[in-house]
């Protein structure tokens, strides 16, 4: 039996939720923007009217306002976006339990069995679209197809408030003429490299030699060839919106530039607190650390390293992250933003290789983890501000809203 897969994409999600909450915004150019004072003054999302003025996501508010002086800017309300995302998924569950979120605003639904053919899939897609519109006041674009890649492509083809079918039979006649970079998995650089070989549209990619693509891009080459030929057979996997806990990261844009290592250390220490806490929640330890540094010219660089022994300790992660930073960053420019991410996570109980020559690192790690556990217990009982690293007590270069806080019960905001 052929699969019936839907990809539901909530149009201009953040901006649409803002309009659903405040209908007076409807018909006006809207941009959801970060706080300029906290140096997050960029466009996070915009509606179609604002797009019509050429406003782009991630553009500065200043530049957006120059393009459209009457632009209405609103602050983001992530808790409300999360709620609307959850409500939409609750609607989807009326049709199938097999739902795979892709970010807050997109989901794949496997309706195989419920819909016996593509026509029934389209009818159900229309029903879902109308239900979401009636109950949440938001519009959806839905792609209906026989695999996830084409369902996603379909949802991008017509916007807003539309259902698009990419049928299994003769699908190239529908999508063959689209740019190859419209396919999921083909980003800007892959698209540019494909262009060099004369591949611009999906039909050209589909008829290109699989072996040559394999040579050019490795495994990914074969994968995009399969995508173009409708051979994607990846299942819709049931999971929640929470990202699979493959990594735990935390980052900030400092209110003003960080000028020296001491300031970066304080920020990394503070960021690592949250990372360590998340690892405890996941029941995992990090075997590696990634740091991402953005300088004040907006150049972004990233480095990573392995840890000597897997850890949950915020202090150990911060120490390794800072060592990596000290070894790698050349201080051409002051630092604007810092992210610390724990990677290569392993389960707490999983055996790990200890050093053959010295057990000092392992002992130090165990000691740090015990200290962190005690700190968490104290914060859970008496509140987040009761105990802090002395180094970060007077650190004006960490935005207040990003400062981790622990609620009674040990749950961090």
């Amino acid at each position, binding site marked *: 039996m052929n699969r019936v897969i839907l990809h539901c994409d909530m149009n201009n999600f953040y901006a649409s939720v803002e309009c*659903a*909450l*405040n*209908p007076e915004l409807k018909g006006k150019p809207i941009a959801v923007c970060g706080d300029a004072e906290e140096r997050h003054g960029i466009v996070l999302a915009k509606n179609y009217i604002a797009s019509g003025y050429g406003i782009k996501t991630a553009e500065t508010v200043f530049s957006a306002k120059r393009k459209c002086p009457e632009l209405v800017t609103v602050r983001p309300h992530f808790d409300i976006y999360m709620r609307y995302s959850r409500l939409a998924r609750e609607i989807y569950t009326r049709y199938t339990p097999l739902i795979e979120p892709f970010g807050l605003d997109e989901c794949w639904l496997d309706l195989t069995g419920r819909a016996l053919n593509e026509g029934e899939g389209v009818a159900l897609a229309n029903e879902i679209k109308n239900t979401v519109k*009636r*109950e*949440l*006041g*938001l519009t959806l674009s839905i792609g209906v197809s026989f695999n996830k890649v084409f369902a996603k492509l379909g949802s991008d083809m017509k916007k807003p408030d539309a259902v698009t079918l990419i049928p299994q039979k003769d699908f190239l006649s529908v999508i063959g003429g689209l740019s190859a970079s419209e396919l999921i998995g083909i980003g800007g650089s892959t698209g540019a490299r494909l262009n060099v070989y004369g591949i611009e549209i999906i039909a050209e990619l589909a008829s290109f030699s699989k072996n040559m693509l394999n040579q050019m891009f490795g495994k990914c080459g074969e994968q995009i060839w399969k995508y173009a030929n409708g051979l994607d057979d990846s299942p819709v996997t049931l999971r929640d919106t929470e990202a699979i806990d493959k990594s735990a990261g935390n980052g900030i844009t400092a209110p003003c530039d960080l000028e020296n290592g001491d300031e970066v250390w304080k920020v990394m220490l503070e960021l690592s607190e949250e990372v360590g806490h998340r690892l405890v929640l996941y029941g995992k330890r990090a075997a590696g650390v990634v740091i991402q540094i953005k300088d004040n010219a907006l150049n972004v660089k990233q480095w990573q390293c392995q840890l000597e022994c897997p850890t949950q300790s915020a202090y150990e992660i911060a120490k390794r992250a800072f060592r990596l930073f000290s070894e790698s960053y050349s201080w051409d420019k002051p630092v604007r933003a810092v992210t610390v991410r724990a990677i290569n996570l392993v389960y707490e109980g999983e055996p790990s290789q200890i050093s053959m020559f010295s057990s000092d690192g392992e002992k130090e790690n165990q000691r740090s983890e015990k200290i962190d556990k005690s700190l968490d217990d104290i914060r859970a009982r008496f509140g987040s501000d009761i105990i802090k690293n002395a180094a970060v007590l007077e650190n004006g270069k960490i935005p207040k809203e990003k400062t981790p806080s622990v609620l009674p019960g040990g749950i961090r905001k």
Partner: protein
Amino acid sequence: MKYEKIYVSVGLNVDTEGEIRPVAIRWRNGKIYEIDKIRQKTCAASLKVGGRGIRYTVMIEGKERYLFNEEGRWFVEGKAVSN
């Protein structure tokens, strides 16, 4: 016509199954309006004043009105008073 979201106090009947049923609303001037009939109960967004919740289509003094239960708070779509 401009509308505004008006939160109201609501009198509820709760049956033995825990099912709730609005029976009256208290307007902001303190006047209490009995709900004569509930015609429909559905999840819906308010297109006039924003927000969403469980929408009751109710009859009050012979007129049909929407009454929303927005996660425990109740509101109606009221005509905005121009100053």
